[in-house]
């Protein structure tokens, strides 16, 4: 057990060669995974992740160290390694003992039933039910591979400014993997039913069976889908999961990590017009029930709502502590990390396009030829983004017609968000997924109302 006195000693050692800030991040996390393949339970695994990260700053210079040897001697030795990295600065700090003040922030995702209190067989029953149901949805389902996950992450953060903050994040998930096909045409895909909840995530089976139905029917739709000739057309993005568009086209570029590295088209544009008037983009880690929410960010600050773009005007960036030092900006509670093996950096939480005033039906009916994207897959961000389309359709003369296959979107985000010409009235959330970046895999959601880009490149056949 690491007590406050020991933590104070570690921080003092970390700062002994001139660092001006030190932080200790403790993580203790339990995970359970149950694999169900070809109608049998094939593996059950329990995992324990436990360790400490030590973060030292000196101006804009950073040092991050982590270890899972939690003996006090090892932690002091690790802190000493960090101090030696900074030793060339020829200065030293003499700190007194630090008085830590524990801040209490309420996690917006309260838990009713701890997953660890539920026996494996109840979790297996859910896997069997959703898998059996999935096979029955369509006879072209060839193989199902279902996995149950739950995890319980406890974190505590202490820093040299006296901060002491704690959080407990619990979530539950079923991952459905399926292979579908006929006559030599096969497709496989996976998708997650993810909830920032305990075992109560599964108390209403209609919810997860609806998820399975939507996943399988969408995947099977590929079999009869037709190829699409690449071209530039208006593209309508459905409400909900298509918020990934915002995550990849500009979310990553609005992180202070990208701004400070000069790898963002949004650098230096605060206060300027960067998108169409219809675009108000928000990142909010406080929304109850969403996968990207938490009590605090991973630097101990209570999560908050950040308006990034308001009516097309760039209002701010997502800023962590180090990014704030590099850009001379305050933290926006956006310092996030997968766990103790990663230094925190600026990351998104729940990112969404605010609802507008346009009619959802009209934005399709007014398109002579275009593409309707119902569901997006994963992608990558940066100045140029790329996102795979999981489910897309042709729009002909104002109506959604054929299912299309092999669609991929890519382009330059800052150019495309100027072409948003419709934003619908109904904001639709999504379950969420993980986002991979320099501080590991973090839970996020990205959502929106139905929205239209007046003209963009759609890659296909």
């Amino acid at each position, binding site marked *: 057990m690491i007590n406050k006195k020991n933590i104070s000693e570690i921080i003092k050692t970390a700062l002994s060669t001139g660092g001006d800030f030190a932080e200790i991040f403790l993580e203790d996390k339990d*995970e359970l*995974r149950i694999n169900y*393949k070809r109608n*049998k*339970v*094939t*593996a*059950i*695994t*329990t*995992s*324990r*992740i436990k360790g400490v990260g030590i973060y030292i700053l000196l101006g*804009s*210079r*950073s*040092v*991050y*160290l*982590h*270890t*899972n*040897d939690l003996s006090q001697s090892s932690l002091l030795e*690790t802190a000493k390694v*960090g101090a030696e990295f900074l030793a*060339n600065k020829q200065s030293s700090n003499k700190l007194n003992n630090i008085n830590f003040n524990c801040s209490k922030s309420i996690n917006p995702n309260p838990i009713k039933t701890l997953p660890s209190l539920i026996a494996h067989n109840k979790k*297996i029953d859910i896997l069997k039910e959703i898998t059996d149901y999935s096979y029955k949805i369509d006879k072209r389902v060839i193989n199902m591979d279902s996995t149950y*996950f739950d995890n319980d992450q406890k974190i505590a953060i202490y820093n040299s400014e006296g901060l002491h903050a704690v959080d407990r994040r619990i979530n539950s998930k079923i991952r459905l993997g399926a*292979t579908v*096909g006929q006559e030599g045409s*096969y*497709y*496989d895909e996976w998708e997650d039913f993810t909830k920032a909840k305990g075992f109560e995530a599964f108390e209403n089976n209609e919810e997860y069976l609806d998820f399975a139905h939507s996943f399988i029917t969408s995947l099977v739709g590929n079999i009869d889908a037709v190829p699409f*000739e*690449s071209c*530039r057309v208006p593209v309508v993005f459905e409400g909900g999961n298509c918020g990934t568009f915002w995550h990849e086209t500009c979310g990553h570029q609005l992180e202070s990590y990208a701004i400070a*590295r*000069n*790898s963002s*088209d949004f650098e230096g544009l605060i206060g300027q017009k960067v998108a169409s008037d219809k675009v108000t983009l928000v990142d909010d880690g406080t929304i109850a029930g969403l996968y990207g929410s938490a009590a605090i960010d991973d630097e101990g600050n209570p999560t908050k709502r950040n308006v990034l773009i308001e009516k097309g005007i760039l209002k701010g960036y997502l800023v962590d502590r180090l990014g704030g030092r590099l850009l001379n900006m305050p933290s926006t509670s956006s310092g996030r990390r997968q766990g103790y093996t990663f*230094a925190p950096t600026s990351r998104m939480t729940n990112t969404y396009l605010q609802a507008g005033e346009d009619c959802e039906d009209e934005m399709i009916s007014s398109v002579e030829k275009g593409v309707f994207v119902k569901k997006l897959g*994963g*992608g*990558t961000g*940066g*100045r140029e983004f*790329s*996102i*795979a389309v999981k489910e897309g359709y042709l729009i002909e003369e104002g109506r959604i017609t054929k299912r299309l296959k*092999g669609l*991929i979107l*890519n382009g330059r985000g800052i150019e495309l968000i100027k072409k948003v010409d419709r934003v619908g009235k109904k904001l639709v959330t999504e379950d969420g997924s*993980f986002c*991979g970046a320099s501080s590991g*895999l973090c*839970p996020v959601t990205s959502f929106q109302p139905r929205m239209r880009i007046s003209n963009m*490149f759609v*890659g*296909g*056949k």
Partner: protein
Amino acid sequence: MINLESCRIALKELPPHIKNAEFNIEKNTSYLVKVTGKEVAGNSYSDITEVFVRASGEKTGFAYTQDLNENPKDLITKAYNNSLDIEFSNLNILNKEGRYEVLPENTVNLQEMVNYARLLEEKLLKSHKSIESVVVESRTDINRSSILNSYGLDKRYERKVSYLSAHIVAKYQDKVYNLSNAMSGRQYRDIDMEDIIDQVINQLESQFNARSYKSGVYSCLLDKSVMVNIMMTAWQLFSGIKYSDSALTGRLNSTIGSAAFTLIDSPAHHKTGYHYRFDCEGTEAGENILVENGYLKGLMHNILTAHSVGHKPTGNAGRYALLSGTIPTDIIVVPKILYIKPGKKDRRDLLKQLKDGIYITESYDVFHSINISSGNFSIPCRGSLIRNGKKAENITEMTISGNLIDLFKNIKEVGNDIYIEEFLKKSYCIGSPSVIVTNLNVNAG
């Protein structure tokens, strides 16, 4: 407290209801130095010990911990308890013998790391007038792998990898460009900085003044980085686990590529610092020619997948193959250093041979744009139009599409410029030279 000795004792004192058990202990130590403007801008240090356990009665269960205060006997019990609800009898065949221990004196010289980072930064800044700033990271990883089981298998091996990566910001005609390149070696002196610089300049110059182009079927030169990007996902076709659900199903011992296409999985290669002695089940890591002159000769196997088809394991048991928010404890199949065998021609000769076509210099997000079951791909990319063997103009907003098997069959020439990249999770490497491919669909707006 978990250490090798306490694990050995736990394995010797297995309770009668546990038939066998195995520990795989991975200790990873990593140092990183970040340099920009000749100054050290950041450092990191990591020291993590991971303990993977499997235990079998009638079935097999798994457990994993980073909590070094756990008792190895309790961990075996935890893994065994996880086996009780298993419905699939997975045999759990373990390697039954073998001792190996090579623990070289692997030291880390921080000043050397800083010096190499500064040198690469300096060279890059001088290499092209549009390059405005460079951040170089030098990283030294030391991995000590230990496998021990209740049949007496007891192996240890230590690997050191030195790694340089460069992140460039360039400005050309008021537009800012970013790109990165990286390379590893056993020692920093083994890393060919000129290769890094050549690749950076090649990709950078291919981005300037790019315009869109027309769709069509073209002969293309796929840059080594593009082929590596494709094979970073496509390797799964050659896995003993994925084979039965993949685009290669039923094609073992048949021709799946052109005569120019030879694919090798190897425990070592001079273009990377990674090297392997045995896999996570303790099986020796040898060289395996998977495809020879287009003919699919074999697959990569762990013990179980090899047993299921009557083959020998190939030393490809591993765990970290995909990005996942959870710890991957199941033993699956992963490559070691999987690469396309290089030919003799350099890039200039390849462009001359291509004569008229498209040189694809960069591709994006292949993980989401290749379907392993069907083999179909649709990959966003950019490149240069080639006329009479020379770069004519740069083009962007394109995708290349088709089927992986057709791509392998249409490989007409393979270059000598092999490039090897580590997978993000540091568990394996993928390599390829640049290749000429005919009849490739290029789709543009």
